[in-house]
């Protein structure tokens, strides 16, 4: 066993950390979030140059990482800055694309270079967190597939050049088989994208597909067998947002600790009060639990124990993350309720991450379903 990062990975973390610290203060972040695209294309290019996108993908598809620890290291740093650039969307869609044929995987080079933006359009208005629930259909007509359906809360769906879309080519709404994946240029006729901001400052879109005609070349992988790729992408994405949550948690705790030392009431720093001290001690303990679950999930990402550890992680992030987010606000008091003070923004992100890829209850149910593998 070894809980130390390799030198390469430590350098990656340091680089991401420095970038966020030096060029991504909260004011800048809000400015990017409120801009028309909802992020800064220049910053995205800079981050691509630094290799932060490449770190998310394996060498086979042109990256230089792609393991659980690469993903978690990068996203933890992104979480510390509440970075709004579309890392998550490109990780998700890129992971699916990397299971495709050469003409698809070769596109990842452009993703890694920051020139091509992708998004994964999988979830639907009625799917909740069930990955097999796909109502969107794709019917083969000659040499084209025709797609019809609605995709919900597509992360960064409004900035993507190309969409990775799941659609049913056979079977019933919840069947594990019969789901196919397609690469659809966002400007294809019949693709209607309604972009919007999320409450925590990120971008997403509702996407309606009305008689969208695409060539059979757009099929990623084997027809009807897309679920495994979606599961893989979702596992990567869950790991990523959990790491992001941990970064936000670290920031929230640092800020709260500092505040307890400096804020005076009743003539003393409020950290003198045991009622606050013990709660601080508890949230620091929970943070360590989350970090451990993150290490487990990253370490088992490519094994048969992936799903158990991913669900364990996400349950803990949802459960303990909520406790930490709420406590960082409560211990600060009124100041944390203001837009101007950063701690509330970290809390918002931590809480909203519970709504990505399954919340506390969803993952508890997954754990029960899987039984204990280890």
């Amino acid at each position, binding site marked *: *066993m070894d809980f130390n990062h390799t030198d390469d990975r430590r350098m990656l973390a340091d680089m991401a950390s420095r970038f966020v610290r030096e060029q991504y203060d909260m004011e800048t972040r809000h400015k990017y979030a409120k801009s028309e695209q909802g992020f800064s294309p220049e910053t995205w290019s800079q981050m691509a140059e630094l290799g932060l996108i490449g770190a998310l993908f394996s060498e086979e598809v042109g990256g230089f990482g792609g393991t659980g620890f690469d993903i978690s290291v990068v996203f933890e740093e992104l979480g510390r800055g509440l970075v709004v650039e579309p890392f998550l969307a490109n990780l998700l869609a890129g992971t699916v694309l990397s299971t495709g044929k050469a003409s698809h995987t070769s596109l990842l080079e452009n993703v890694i270079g920051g020139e091509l933006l992708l998004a994964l359009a999988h979830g639907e208005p009625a799917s909740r967190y069930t990955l097999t629930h796909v109502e969107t259909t794709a019917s083969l007509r000659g040499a084209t597939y025709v797609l019809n359906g609605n995709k919900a809360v597509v992360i960064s769906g409004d900035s993507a050049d190309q969409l990775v879309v799941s659609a049913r080519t056979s079977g019933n709404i919840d069947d594990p088989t019969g789901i196919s994946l397609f690469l659809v240029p966002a400007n294809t006729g019949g693709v209607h994208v309604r972009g919007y901001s999320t409450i925590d400052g990120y971008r997403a879109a509702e996407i309606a597909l009305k008689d969208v005609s695409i060539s059979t070349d757009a099929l990623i992988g084997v027809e009807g067998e897309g679920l495994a790729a979606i599961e893989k992408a979702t596992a990567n994405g869950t790991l990523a947002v959990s790491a992001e949550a941990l970064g936000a948690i670290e920031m929230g705790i640092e800020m709260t600790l500092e505040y307890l030392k400096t804020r005076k009431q009743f003539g003393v720093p409020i950290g003198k009060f045991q009622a606050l001290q013990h709660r601080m001690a508890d949230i620091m*303990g929970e943070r360590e639990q989350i970090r451990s679950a993150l290490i487990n999930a990253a370490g088992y990402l490519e094994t048969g124990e992936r799903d158990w550890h991913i669900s364990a992680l996400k349950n803990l992030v949802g459960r303990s993350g909520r406790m930490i987010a709420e406590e960082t606000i409560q211990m600060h008091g009124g100041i944390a309720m203001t837009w101007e003070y950063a701690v509330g923004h970290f809390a918002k992100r931590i809480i909203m991450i519970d709504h990505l890829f399954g919340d506390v209850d969803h993952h508890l149910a997954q754990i029960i379903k899987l039984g204990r593998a280890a």
Partner: protein
Amino acid sequence: MDLNYTPEEQEFQNEIRCFFNAKLPKQLSLKVKTKKRLAKEDQDQWHKILNDEGYLNAHWPVEFGGKGWNAIQRDMFDVEANAAGAPRVVPFGLNMLSPVLMAFGSKQQQEHYLPRILNGTDWWCQGYSEPGAGSDLASLKMSAVRDGDHYILNGQKTWTTLGQHANMIFCLVRTSNEGKRQEGISFILVDMDTPGVEVRPIIMLEGTHEVNEVWFTDVKVPITNLVGEENKGWTYAKYLLVHERSGIAGVGDALASIEHLKHIANDQKKDGKPLAQDPMFAARLAEIEIDLAAMRTTNMRVMQAASEGAPPGPEVSMLKIKGTELRQSINDLTRRALGAYAMPFVSEALDMGSNEESIGPDYANPVALDYFNNRKTTIYGGSNEVQRNIISKMMMGL
């Protein structure tokens, strides 16, 4: 990062598994696994087997006859020991007094006491807490007054675990009332056969005799029994508290307990189906398993840092809190898994070979007892509230 054991660690795990297979008496592990009462003879038997193999003090430094095991190795041993159903080794002499003697004791004390701890001649107990000094240990009052070549001890210690079996006790005593309270405390070794020492049992809420009061009335102790310097005892006791990281989370015990709980939950029926399949129960169990998997890794992270020589920090207290709360939640769910059969209690049936039969399933009898008994874990060893104080002091310096 690598979550897999190295080849060396795997080999080590094999070695200790083979040992438990070959050397742990079946009768003894059956007693432990079925939670029967352990007699002093059981403890002594296992103590000797471990000592014969060099495992008893494997965590001691090589210069004191140990194998110099690091924290990871100790932890692996603890997990395997619990899985095999080995009795818990009584820690007072071996893990609590010995490191203090090695660090601060005289050559004579080391040469006299350490071998006797290993060969079982001495059974040590701990004299720290007093009726008026619990969480506020530094307020202890038991006095040691110098009289020629002796100290005269007067006062009372309490919560003395297994003091009824012990022949020796290490005590924190007050040798000065000057200055800071902590600076008037000394660390002294007392032969319990000395006139004036009296051990009185304390029966705990669940009816077991585990702890005692120890009274000292004009007890004459040679000054050679003082460890280190007079009035430095607090430092020695604290040294122990911060350096004893291994086992504090109780991972081995938690893993064995959750396996036991699953066995019960699969055996118990609700509406004709195994209780384990009841959604409410399954959810509670799943949550514990999630927390335990994370704590196991938290524990190994701390152990690795310890093995690499990192100074102890607040994570030791975090492990104590998380470890004890988690084990209590396992005890709690195990109790609930039994339904009404958590209530019957046949004390005699806790003795191996007793003719008295327990009521309900075989595993039911000790479950509520364990639940009540383990309420102690969040109180002893620095209550969890004291641990939270320690964490915040370290983190905030306030």
